[in-house]
């Protein structure tokens, strides 16, 4: 392996950067796959398939990183590969500390790749981690406590290959012939006892080879004489053979040219014969495949590997990678098509059905096909919730360890699909909710047992489609919210609360800015910062969030989101001569205004009392400065209509002239096409080709209520 630096970049004629994107994506999938495998693995009895699959992840990333010149990734994945190779050969046994280290290493590789992708400047610190991986690869067992920095012997934390500090040499040490292979293990003990000596790693499988020799790779600053001196405690001097590790290029046994990077098995080139010849062992790298393992490896290779096959199949053949821009372009074009179709439908609706039967039939077909096309195109952007859910098993595992709680995570409906844009934005709010459940919701093991509950707390993540929206629930079977505590906190903060408030009203308080009932500040969910942010983020996506809680039994947070941001169910309303769109989800009810219904309150404006609730009245014609149509001479003024709309749990009554109907509208971004307009969230094009503005109800409500 010697030379794992960026030799891939030395050829100026080839531009390797064109393959970077594929490599990053592939490496990302590999890492996710590795994490899933590790989280799933049976530590006591890991399957060969799993171990092989995890090994291949490290191997594959290393190969790509080396080829494309990401040497830091190569160095770390090389160490991982070494460790995993020994694991899959059953030379080492897996334990949970090892799984932790492997998971951590996966995170670091991810961070390294992120840096190469330019998404961060942070250079991940790897020296200490590599030290631990190396130590594990020697067969040493780390205590869980040893995970912390400083508990690792200095010897193991030697700088990563290939860069050796000045004065450091890498030596091949052959010991033998021996009667008993374990005698040589004493040498490894020496290095453990004398950290300043350097490091030692067996390059064989721990058994004697045919001549009774064992082989090691030693990295040290000590002279040969000193090593022989030390080694002779355990084995006879004449049984010790030390030779420097030559540069990889120097000694390829069968290569006709002086180049070790490739070779042909020509029969003229003499195969390495004498075991004592330096060349015979010179190129043996640490963790090289050992002959003894050849047969089992081949046998295992034939075993079915459902999981890795699936991963490989995911990577290509059945899928096509297309940039999001192209998909969005497609969605935009279909949006235009829908508008054109709507215009045609409008144009022909007054034609005589008998005379234009064929044309009308065609327009009906067009409408149906357009709708199907739109649905099909929208579905391209749909990705399963597992994209978000998959990060939680790992997070829960880490949180459980940090909080010293036993937590089981159940996931339901991972296959439920949601628009890619929404999926990305829902990650943070959901993460926050899950953390909250783990930290504040679930009790400690002692408390749970005392309360007669199973000691393992359960957090359930569930996703399901409900009509045109998706419902995502975060449930826990923890202690639930405490009404009295929320009320007293609310009083402390000067919020207007009463003891006879309904539970729902009390729970609603926790969505207020900066509200926290946490007993203590923890580094897991911080100081309650965020429930208001969670609510705001979800509202920004056109969604809602609700909370239910039963003391002692648990809490359920329900997040409801539209399936996509690109189309929306709207109610078109007439104001003067213009048409506006209200998001249907925000419309509660509507009725005609009767005399005396609207009351003027002081100077602050008008209110209306609907079902015992007073709410502000806003005349949209005034708000948007639309000229009112003068009633025709002699006719009575057209009665106004009140539409009750709700956002963020608050309502207002909007005065409109006309309700025109409900239909799906294709949402166009106003900011990118024009500029931001107050109280307007977007625009759409109507069947007759006119533009209608979509009202931002939440902004309207917020301003009206202040």
């Amino acid at each position, binding site marked *: *392996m010697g030379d*794992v630096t960026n*030799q*891939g*970049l*030395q*050829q100026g*004629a*080839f531009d*390797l950067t*064109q*393959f970077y994107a*594929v*490599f990053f994506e*592939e490496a990302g999938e590999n890492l996710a796959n590795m994490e899933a495998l590790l989280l799933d693995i049976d530590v006591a009895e890991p399957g060969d398939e799993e171990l*092989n*699959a995890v*090994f*291949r992840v490290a*191997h*594959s990333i*290393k*190969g*790509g990183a*080396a*080829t*494309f010149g990401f040497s830091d990734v190569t160095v770390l994945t090389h160490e991982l*590969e070494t460790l995993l190779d020994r694991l899959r050969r059953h030379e080492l046994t897996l334990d949970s500390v090892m799984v932790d280290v492997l998971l951590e290493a996966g995170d670091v590789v991810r961070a390294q790749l992120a840096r190469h992708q330019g998404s961060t400047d942070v250079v991940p610190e790897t020296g200490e981690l590599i030290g631990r991986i190396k130590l594990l690869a020697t067969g040493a067992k780390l205590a869980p406590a040893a995970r912390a920095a400083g508990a690792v012997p200095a010897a193991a934390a030697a700088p990563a290959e290939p860069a050796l500090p000045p004065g450091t040499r890498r030596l091949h040490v052959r010991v033998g012939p021996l009667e008993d292979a374990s005698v040589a293990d004493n040498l490894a003990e020496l290095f453990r006892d004398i950290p300043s000596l350097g490091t030692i790693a067996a390059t064989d499988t721990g058994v004697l080879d045919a001549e009774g020799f064992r082989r090691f790779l030693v990295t040290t600053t000590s002279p040969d004489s000193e090593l022989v001196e030390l080694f002779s405690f355990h084995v006879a001097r004449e049984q010790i053979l030390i030779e420097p590790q030559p540069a*990889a290029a120097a000694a*390829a*046994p*069968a290569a006709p040219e002086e180049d*070790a*990077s*490739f*070779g*042909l*098995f020509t029969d003229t080139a003499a195969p390495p014969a004498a075991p004592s010849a330096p060349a*015979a*062992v010179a*190129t*043996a*790298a640490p*963790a*090289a*495949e*050992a*002959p003894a393992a*050849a047969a089992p*490896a*081949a046998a295992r*290779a*034939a075993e079915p*590997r459902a999981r890795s*096959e699936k*991963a*490989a199949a995911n*990577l*290509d*053949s059945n899928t096509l990678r297309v940039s999001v821009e192209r998909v969005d372009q497609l969605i935009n074009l279909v949006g235009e098509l829908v508008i054109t179709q709507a215009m045609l439908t409008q144009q022909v609706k007054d034609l005589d059905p008998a005379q234009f039967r064929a044309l009308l039939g065609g327009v009906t077909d067009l409408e149906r096909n357009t709708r199907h096309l739109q649905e099909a195109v929208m579905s391209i952007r749909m990705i399963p919730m597992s994209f978000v859910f998959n990060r939680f098993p790992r997070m829960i595992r880490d949180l459980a360890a940090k909080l010293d709680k036993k937590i089981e995570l159940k996931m339901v409906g991972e296959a439920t699909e949601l628009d890619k844009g929404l999926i990305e934005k829902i990650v943070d709010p959901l993460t926050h909710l899950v953390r909250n459940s783990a930290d504040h919701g679930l009790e400690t093991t002692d408390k749970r047992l005392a309360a007669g509950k199973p000691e393992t707390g359960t957090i359930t993540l569930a996703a399901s489609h409900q009509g045109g929206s998706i419902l995502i629930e975060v449930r826990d079977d923890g202690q639930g919210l405490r009404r009295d505590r929320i009320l007293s906190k609310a009083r402390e903060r000067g919020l207007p609360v009463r003891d006879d408030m309904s539970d729902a009203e009390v729970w609603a308080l926790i969505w207020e800015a900066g509200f926290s009932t946490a007993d203590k500040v923890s580094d897991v969910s911080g100081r309650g910062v965020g429930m208001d942010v969670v609510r705001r983020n979800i509202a920004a996506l056109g969604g809602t969030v609700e909370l239910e809680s039963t003391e002692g039994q648990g809490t359920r947070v329900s997040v409801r989101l539209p399936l996509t941001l690109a189309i929306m169910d709207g109610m078109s309303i007439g104001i003067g001569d213009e048409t506006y769109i209200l998001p249907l989800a925000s419309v509660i009810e509507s009725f005609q205004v009767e005399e005396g219904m609207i009351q003027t309150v002081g100077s602050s404006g008008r209110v209306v009392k609907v079902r015992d609730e007073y709410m502000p009245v806003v005349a949209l014609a005034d708000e948007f400065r639309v000229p009112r149509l003068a009633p025709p001479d002699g006719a009575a003024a057209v009665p106004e209509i009140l539409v009750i709309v709700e956002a963020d749990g608050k309502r207002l009554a909007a005065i409109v002239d006309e309700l025109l109907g409900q239909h799906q509208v294709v949402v166009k971004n106003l900011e990118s096409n024009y500029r931001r307009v107050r109280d307007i969230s977007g625009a759409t094009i109507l069947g007759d080709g006119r533009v209608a503005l979509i009202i931002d109800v939440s902004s309207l409500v917020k301003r009206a209520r202040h």
Partner: protein
Amino acid sequence: MHSILAVDDSASMRQMVAFTLKGAGYNVIEAADGQEALDKARGETVDLVLTDQNMPRMDGITLVQNLRTLATYASTPILILTTESSDEMKAKGRAAGATGWLVKPFDPGKLLDVVRKVIR
């Protein structure tokens, strides 16, 4: 035009190899693992097989062993790509009937040099 069967489970490596070889005028057939390569090899003959070692389903050495049992592949040059230039790996490759090896990482120029050496 010479055909080359390129076998690697990593899509990025496969792309890089295919791009390089196609650019040099070779016809490239890709396979994502040994099994897929063997299936494709049964369908057509090629002038060179370039295979990675560590792959799901079937590794490189096993692929070489299987290819050598096919009459049409008895003398086709086969190069194994390995990450370690270890003797054991080479011995296994040789025993399986491979023609030679190429150490990863390699740059595109090196790949072409080696390919030109083995394809006549």
